[in-house]
């Protein structure tokens, strides 16, 4: 990955000045590159990684496996596009293996999610079966440790 992107992925709040210094570039040129990435759709957006256990205690998340049968003129892509239109759906991916679509759904309660799956997802034409797995605890998200910071065991000062 390009150095600029990999730095932004680690921390999107680094200023253009900081990025420029670290990459031996100018802030103006960094701004221009980021704009290019945004225009080309390489950078899709900027978001914050929250510790949901603290911020929204009542939010429930589930990973849902969907088995689907693609049909003539209505393939995986079309099915995925139908699934992703729901606001409750946070992510959709086509994957290899035992099932086809991996869907992340968030809601206010287990019941809400269960109902959403039963009423909305499983009824989509082409969906053969679903399996819902509720998230109990998160340990790491986008490369960041959620649970607690890794403790630096090095002594304060060493020669």
């Amino acid at each position, binding site marked *: 990955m390009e150095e600029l992107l990999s730095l932004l992925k*680690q921390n999107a709040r680094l200023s253009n000045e900081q990025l420029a*210094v670290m990459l031996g570039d100018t802030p103006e040129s960094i701004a221009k590159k980021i704009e290019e990435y945004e225009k080309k759709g390489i950078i899709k957006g900027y978001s914050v990684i929250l510790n949901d256990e603290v911020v929204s205690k009542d939010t429930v998340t589930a990973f849902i496996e969907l088995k689907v049968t693609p049909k003539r003129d209505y393939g995986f892509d079309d099915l995925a596009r139908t699934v992703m239109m729901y606001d409750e759906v946070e992510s959709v991916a086509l994957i290899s293996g035992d099932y086809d679509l991996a869907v992340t759904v968030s809601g206010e309660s287990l019941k809400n999610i269960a109902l959403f799956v039963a009423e909305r997802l499983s009824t989509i034409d082409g969906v053969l079966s679903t399996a819902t797995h509720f998230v109990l605890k998160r340990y790491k998200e986008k490369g960041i440790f959620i649970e607690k910071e890794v403790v*630096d065991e090095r002594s304060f*000062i*060493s*020669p």
Partner: protein
Amino acid sequence: MINYDNVLSEKIKTLKPSGIRKFFDIAQTIDGVISLGVGEPDFPTPWAIRSVAISTLEKGKTVYTSNSGLLQLREEIAEYIKRKNNLEYNPHNEIIVTVGGSEAIDISLRTLINPGDEVLIVEPCFVCYAPIVTLCGGIPVSINTKVEDNFKLTPQILKEKITDKSKVLVLPFPSNPTGAIMTREDLLEIVDIIKENNIFVLSDEIYSELTYGRKHCSIAEINEMQERTIIVNGFSKAFAMTGWRLGYLAAPEPIVTQILKIHQYAIMCSPTVSQYAAIEALKNCENEVEKMVNEYDKRRRLLVDSFNNMGLECFNPEGAFYVFPSIKSTGLSSEEFCERLLFEQKVAVVPGNAFGESGEGFIRVSYAYSLKHLIEALKRIEKFINSLKKD
């Protein structure tokens, strides 16, 4: 009751404890300190290396190795030096695997020094050389490098300190604490003086992998200097293996044969598990080193720029993982600066004079920390500097 004063060696009693230690003790008593004071990588040892160590233990390879280390490791080291420096060392009798670079320095100096010999030490530098020289009955002679020379050893300052008693030159580049390096051109300027005065070189190259922009050059590479050089290196800094305690030295056979005697009596052999792990490091982990160097480089640029912007003039270091900004503009001494920074903003950095008199007026700041940590620490240091301006 026993009088311990009578028990202790006079030499040891007069030996000063490391200046770093004192500061460490203060830092430990304060809550919420963030430190930029360490001299070891923040990365864990690459997994491939750790996993070899685990399987070594599983296989029960837990006995002594030969005194000078596993032959396979010495062969890898010879191969590595050939690759990096284009120098030939015989793995059978010109390389010893040691307990960190520290042991290599210790036993090398002990092998070379007769009482009364003068040992030239390029300062500011790592803290161990002068005390070891003193213990050997030698006389440590400081060569003070200057910021205007980018903390390099210049022919002028070298010549000034040479006497007919000068025997050994300790050449520690890339430098802890300054981050200075000696390029091939810089070394070319001093080798003739070294030869004319029949001086032997202890080249501490522990930071050789951590250079930014150009490759490290060993003095042994230059004009027959190999015959009068001991190269000290190790796995701590390059492969993030500080706790494994593994280093090595390479030197001509007549020297190594003598050094090996001390190593045999004092150490027997280096830790066996670490030795197996080190084989993996040399064979398969060069790209891991490259990744770490790449990370360090970004942090280095950020720190140099930030200190210069704060008004603490910071020379551009090309090696190791330290920056060495000048704090002279604040009017404080190194120790005053560090103590006040510690008490007022809870940031620990190391006073430059802990690395020799010529470090006075500077502080050593390590960037072996995550970007997040560095940015927070820089904010605090800036607050501190601004509060000084208001005083």
